[in-house]
Structure formats: structure tokens, C-alpha cells
């Protein structure tokens, strides 16, 4: 049971909060409190209940049991706007911006400045400029449509919008995941200012370095229960992870095999595309995991998409096992033996309302067909094999895939591709938003697949992951590969140095936002 957390200074107090979703216990008897003027991190695996907790506080869902007190008064928020009215503002992981409306419209979407009953666009624009300046991002033009802004700018707009509601309690749910490092610093500064102004801040992030840098207090959740709350510095990272997954982690990453002669399965020669890829040459051998590193937006994702046939107008040569291929579409890439685990599993990797079995089988229907028909027996067997191999925790294969947790959903995506028996596997940030336990399973699986002869290209924004999983890491800058690191050279220092192009091997160019 958690320590006594109900202090008199608590600004927000939750008592006995419980919530069930169709038989799954999202939260169970949670007592929680946070104070003004402190940054309070909320940690836990996916499925631990963090997002449910946040949604209850922000008024998106209602608890089945329990109570909330805000500034000493009992409260209950039926809608997000009720929460906003009480000074509780949440910045969600999925942006709440309307892409076709302008920045100024989005920032003042609910209670815009009015004149004669109609929206005063000039005052609205000034308000937007002012709020963006408070974060330090004046370069965003309030007249631009959100749709025309890159993701990092959109996230800035989202933060400005939240700031504009003058929160007493600000909740950030993975709110900095797409920001450039420069903007992240600005946001940290903004949070520090809010903190000293007495705002209570709840911060959810899977990035340990961020949490360590920012948080004054942290609470760990596991399986819907509040496990422990502690001050900064009390618990080590290893302790925290253990609290989160509830068991000892011996090693986080599977062992890497000693270097063996790898015949190149995938070879790229002078691959170029628009401004994003500039004469990329790379080869990946059978059994190799090659990582793509570097700052965000240097072309890593474009490289994976180019190999998978999603991009048009790609020049250069791609050979698979010695034969040249020109992936003109994902279907063509699939026939060439290439598989891609995409960036956003909910919109790109899965058909959420469809069953787990349908999602698993969709890429390999030819293999389980007899003649023109799908063979039910073969399909059943293949689906069961896929589920068992990745140990996906499901109710029944006929359940909708939307009922699964994030980690299990990602496993379904991977299993789907494994059923096509690919020679080359492209992983586009596969562990983003996934709990620690499943991450480990995925690392182990990736190494197994490599050992079985696949060539794997692994893009990740997490340096630890790159160092832990990959045999070799290619650092990209401005669309070029500036350095390849392996063995003893594969350290965080070297990665960062190459990522920032400190050795100056690439031309001087601005980072893409």
C-alpha cells in the first residue's frame, strides 16, 4: 500500500478512485495527491492506469468510485470544459488541434475574444502571439493553418493553447515527444516559470532522463494501483523500473553475437529523395541489426518509407540478396521480402475495429489460401502460431484488436509481418509509448529474428535502445549518413557528437523541424 500521501498542502487529492472498462480494471482504489508549485511525474507501464488517471482528472471520463478534491473542495468533472473551468488543463498525447483552422483560431477555440457577439480575429491573433511569445516560440505565424505546420510546431501550438487557459493544474501527457531539442528547452523553462508561480504540474513521460531532470516528486503506478510516491533523488532508475514492472530485470538488452562475416542482404547505393535523403549508401547483412540514429527529422523515417515503396521519385539503387528491386509500392516491397512496422500503430499498423485474427492475417492471405478461397484451418493455425510466438495476451482471436494494450497491439503488428516471412525488417520507432516489460520482449524478439537470418533496420529516438540492441548504428544528419558506429565506438557520446555533426563531415545546414 502506498505511503500516506494526503498532506495538507495537497492541491489535488484523489481518494479511492476506481475505474473499469468492460472487465478490465484500469484503476483500483487509487489514492493520490499533488501539490502546488511542484512538478510531479507519473510513471508506469502502459496498462498501469496512467492515462485513465489523467483522463479522470481532466474530465474526459468519470470514475466508477472514489472522489476528488481540488483546493479543498470536492469536485467532479463531467466534461473537459468543466475541468478547464476549474483550472485543470491537460495537454494530451493526441493533439486536440483542428488541422484546418488557423493557429490563432485553435489557441482561442473555446472562449475567443468577442466583438458585437462575433469573434474578434485581431484580438485573437494578438492573444496567440502573446502566448507563443511566453513559450519563446514567436516564429509560429498565427495565421497559418495547423495542417501546414510540422508536428513539432503543432505541439508548440498545443502547449500555447493550454497555457492560454491559465491553468492551476497543468497535466502534460507525453507532450514533448515530437519537439525539437531547442523547443524542449524552452518548454522546460516555461514549466519552471509556472512552477514558481505556484502552478501544480503533472508530467507523464516514458523518457527517464526527462523525468530525472524535471521532476520534484514521482509516483509509480502498476496494474491500476498506486504503488509509491517519492521525492527527487530518493529512488534510482533501476529501483523505479523495478517498481514499474514489479520484478527484477537482470539485463535489459539481449546479448549481441560476436561479429561474423555478414553477406549483405540489403544494399543501398546513392539513395536520394527530395530534400530529405541525400545519396544514402548502406548495407545490412543477414543477422545484423543496423540502427538509424541522429536528431529527429534528419531523414531516418523517410529512409524507411523509401525502402518500403511509400515514396515517389526515389532515385538510387536498392538490392535485396543481390537482385535489384524498385519498391514502387508497399505491395511490391512486400513481395521483395521487406516488412515495415510503421510509426503509428493505431492508424498505420492496425484496423482497430477488426478482430485480432483478421489483423494478423491481412498481409499473408495468399499463404493461407487454397485456390481462390481462404483456408479456415490454415488461417486458424497461422493465427495461433503468431499469437504464441510473440506471446500476445489476448482474450480470444475474434476480439477486436482495439481491446488490447499498446504493447500487445504492437506485437500484433509485428506478428502480422512475421507471417510473411520477410528477409528485411524495417522498424520505425517500434517501442514508442510501450511499457518497459513489452519493450524487453521486443528487444529479445528482434535479436532472435536477426539470429534466424533476417536483416533489420531499426530506427529509434532512444540512444540507450540503439546502443543496447544494434550491432551497428548509422547516424544521419541532413539526409546523409555522417558516421557508422559499431563495437567499442558505439557509445552515447559518439552518437551525440555525430548527431550534432560536431566533426563536421556533413555540410552546415539547419536541422529540420
Amino acid at each position: 500500500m502506498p505511503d500516506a500521501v494526503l498532506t495538507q498542502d495537497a492541491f489535488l487529492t484523489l481518494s479511492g478512485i476506481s475505474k473499469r472498462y468492460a472487465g478490465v480494471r484500469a484503476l483500483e482504489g487509487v489514492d493520490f495527491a499533488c501539490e502546488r508549485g511542484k512538478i510531479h511525474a507519473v510513471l508506469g507501464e502502459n496498462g498501469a492506469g496512467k492515462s485513465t488517471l489523467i483522463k479522470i482528472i481532466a474530465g474526459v471520463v468519470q470514475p466508477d468510485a472514489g472522489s476528488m478534491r481540488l483546493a479543498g473542495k470536492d469536485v467532479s468533472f463531467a466534461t473537459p470544459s468543466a475541468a478547464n473551468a476549474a483550472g485543470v488543463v491537460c495537454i494530451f498525447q493526441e493533439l486536440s488541434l483542428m488541422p484546418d483552422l488557423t493557429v490563432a483560431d485553435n489557441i482561442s477555440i473555446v472562449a475567443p475574444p468577442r466583438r458585437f457577439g462575433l469573434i474578434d480575429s485581431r484580438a485573437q491573433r494578438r492573444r496567440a502571439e502573446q502566448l507563443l511569445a511566453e513559450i519563446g516560440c514567436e516564429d509560429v505565424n498565427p495565421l497559418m493553418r495547423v495542417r501546414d505546420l510540422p508536428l513539432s510546431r503543432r505541439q508548440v501550438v498545443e502547449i500555447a493553447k493550454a497555457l492560454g487557459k491559465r491553468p492551476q493544474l497543468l497535466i502534460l501527457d507525453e507532450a514533448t515527444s515530437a519537439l525539437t531539442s531547442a523547443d524542449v528547452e524552452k518548454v522546460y523553462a516555461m514549466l519552471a516559470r509556472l512552477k514558481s508561480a505556484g502552478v501544480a504540474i503533472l508530467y507523464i513521460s516514458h523518457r527517464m532522463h526527462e523525468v530525472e531532470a524535471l521532476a520534484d516528486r514521482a509516483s509509480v503506478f502498476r496494474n491500476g494501483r498506486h504503488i509509491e510516491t517519492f521525492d527527487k533523488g530518493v529512488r534510482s532508475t533501476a529501483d523505479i523500473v523495478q517498481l514499474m514492472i514489479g520484478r527484477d530485470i537482470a539485463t535489459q538488452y539481449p546479448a549481441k553475437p560476436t561479429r561474423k562475416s555478414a553477406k549483405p542482404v540489403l544494399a543501398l547505393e546513392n539513395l536520394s529523395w527530395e530534400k530529405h535523403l541525400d545519396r544514402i549508401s548502406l548495407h545490412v547483412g543477414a543477422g545484423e541489426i543496423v540502427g538509424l540514429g541522429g536528431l529527429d527529422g534528419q531523414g531516418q523515417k523517410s529512409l524507411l518509407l523509401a525502402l518500403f515503396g511509400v515514396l515517389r521519385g526515389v532515385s538510387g539503387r536498392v538490392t535485396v540478396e543481390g537482385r535489384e528491386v524498385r519498391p514502387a509500392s508497399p505491395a511490391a516491397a512486400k513481395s521483395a521480402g521487406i516488412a515495415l512496422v510503421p510509426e503509428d500503430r493505431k492508424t498505420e499498423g492496425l484496423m482497430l475495429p477488426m478482430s485480432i485474427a483478421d489483423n494478423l492475417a491481412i498481409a499473408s492471405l495468399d499463404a493461407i489460401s487454397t485456390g481462390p478461397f481462404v483456408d479456415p484451418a490454415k488461417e486458424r493455425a497461422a493465427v495461433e502460431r503468431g499469437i504464441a510466438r510473440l506471446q500476445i495476451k489476448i482474450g480470444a482471436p475474434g476480439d477486436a484488436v482495439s481491446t488490447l494494450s499498446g504493447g500487445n497491439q504492437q506485437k500484433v503488428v509485428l506478428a502480422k509481418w512475421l507471417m510473411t516471412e520477410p528477409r528485411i525488417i524495417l522498424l520505425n520507432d517500434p517501442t514508442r509509448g510501450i511499457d518497459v516489460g513489452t519493450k524487453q520482449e521486443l528487444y529479445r524478439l528482434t535479436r532472435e529474428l536477426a539470429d534466424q537470418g533476417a536483416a533489420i533496420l531499426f530506427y529509434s529516438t532512444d540512444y540507450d535502445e540503439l546502443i543496447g540492441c544494434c550491432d551497428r548504428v548509422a547516424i544521419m544528419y541532413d539526409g546523409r549518413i555522417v558516421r557508422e558506429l559499431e563495437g567499442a565506438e558505439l557509445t552515447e557520446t559518439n552518437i551525440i557528437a555525430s548527431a550534432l555533426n560536431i566533426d563536421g563531415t556533413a555540410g552546415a545546414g539547419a536541422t529540420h523541424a
Partner: protein
Amino acid sequence: MLDDLAIRLRQNVGLVTAILLFCVLYLLYNLAHPKGFSSAVLVQNGDEIFALAMLAMAQTVPVLMSGLDLSVGAVMTMVGCFASYLLTGTAGGTPLHFEFFGLHLGLGTFPGGTGGILLGMAVCVAIGTLAGFINGCVVVYGRIQPIIATLATGAIYIGIALFLRPTPGGKIDEDLNWALTNSLGDFAATLHIFNDGAAVWFAPFAWIPVPFALLALIALLVWVPFRRSVLGRAVYAVGSAEGAAYMSGLPIERAKIAAFTLAGFFAGCGGLFLAIQTSSGNADIPQAGAYTLNSIASVVIGGTSLLGGTGSAIGSIFGAMILRVISFFFRIFDIAPLLQPLFEGLILLAAVSIGALRVLRVKNTLELFR
């Protein structure tokens, strides 16, 4: 300053294109017409454009919310049939009685004279607005997709229209017909205002056809304020990203109902005018269907995306006018009448396929999916 203008222009490319296209086409039309640039032609065009333009405005609002209203033609027809009873203008008023499965329903007498006409017009527009409101409620509280909900309500409204006018008939006050289907000068003369239209300050405006004036008035007094209101912006927000709109705390249900209600209002105006113009009430089902489909085409040609979130009713007005002008061209160029439908169809197809040009320029195929 110039930067901002450039941004605004880029964001309204569809609208600007539609306006330019219409201007070019109408200019060519008047140049080719033997009596081009004359008041008579302008008035005739105005009469023929108004109803479709109103329906295009009506269709725009649900489309902005990424929905559709398949009942606009039916609402227009139903209101027209009501008008044929209420706007007779006879001094003693119109007795209202209906046959209903052998039952005789007497509903009293609807007032006549000028007061009756004004009341009648108000009632007709109110009926259209009510029909729209019902559409909105079915969509929001019934939680039925707009396409299917309005398909069903459209059938109901056409049924009511048929009930009112199983065969075309009815009568519209002649003065009303004359006043509204000619120029502002004639309007003033009929109503005996502004010195019967001869007032000096009025002269520069006397040539303007009443339909165009009405269109401009309705657009300025109804659409522009709506668009700049919080509810109007909520409509755009819902069409752009409904989930985000909910998270932002916008009144989604009210916005949806407002959108359909406004559509009903515009459709009612269109139906009212059509009845006045044709001096009868006609429950013509194929015509209602044609108007509905043409309203969708007008919206697309006017630069509003069927996916919602962007566009404007002003653009749809120009889209409607473009469609009408194209059919005017056939009249003057003596195209074999048998070939007219084919040309109309090809032009429609070409117009809506213009957006395909953007597809050819896309370099990342994921952008094709929304």
C-alpha cells in the same frame, strides 16, 4: 503584411478560383449573347440562379461538418408547396382544408392581403428551418449518419409535399411574383416605395435584379455573421477533427444541430423563391433530386472539400452560378439539344476532377489518405 495576404490567399485558393472562373465565364457569356450586358438578361439569369445558389449555401453547412444533407431538394420542394397555399394574396385569405384518408381537415383561414403575404413568407422560411432542425436532431440524438438520416427525412418531406400538391397547382400573388423576379426598380414600383422607384438616390441601384440583391443580403446578414460566430467556427472545427473538437470542449451537438438548421433555412428560402417565381407549387420528385445533386456539385466546384473543415458558402454560390452559366451557354451556342446533357456531364466531371492534379504532385503516398 504582404506575407499575411499571401497566406490568406493560399488558404482560400478554391474560393478565389471559383470567383475568377465565374467572372470569366459570365463575361464570355454576355459577350456572346446578342442582348448581353442588358438588364433583361441579368434579371432572367438572376431568376434562374437564385434557387440553386440558396441550395448550394444550404448544402455547404453540413458538408463543412464532413456530413451531407440529401434532403435539401426535398425541403425546397415542400416549402414551395406550402407557399402555393399561403401566398395567394387573395384579400379574404386562403381557407385551409385538407383531405386525409377520407377525413376532412379544416384549419381555418390563412390571412390574405399584404399582411398575409408577409406572414406567409415568414411561415414558409420557418418551415424550412424547422425541417433542418429536425434533420439535426435525427443526426445528433438518433446518432444516425447524416447521409442516411437525410435520405430518410428527405423522403418524408417529399411525401408531405406530395400530400400538399398531388398535382401542380396553387397560386402566388401576381404582385409578389413581379416584385421579386425583376429589378429593384420594379420592386420599388410595385411596393410604391422610394417614390415608385424613381427616387434620385435610388437610381444607381434600380437596375440590380432582386434575386442578386437578395442573395447578397442573405449572404451578408446570415452567413457572414454565422461564420464569424463561435458556433459557426465550431462547425468548421467538427468537420476538421471531431475528436479534437470534443477534447477542446466545443459544443459539438449544438454545432451539428445548428448546421442542419441553417441548411434548412437556406433551403426554405430557395423553395420560397422557386414557388414565387413559378407561381405554383409543384411536388416534382426528379426535380428535387436534381437540385440536391447539383447542390453537392456546386459546393465542390465552389472550393469546399467534401471532407469538411474548409470552404465557404460564398464559394458555393459561385459554384452554383458557374453550373447555371454553363447551361446558359448551351442556349446561345445552339448546341444540339440532344448533346447538351452530355456536355453538361463532361464539364461536371472535369470540374470535379481538377482536384486530381494535386494527387499527381504528391511525393509521399501517405498524404493521399486522410
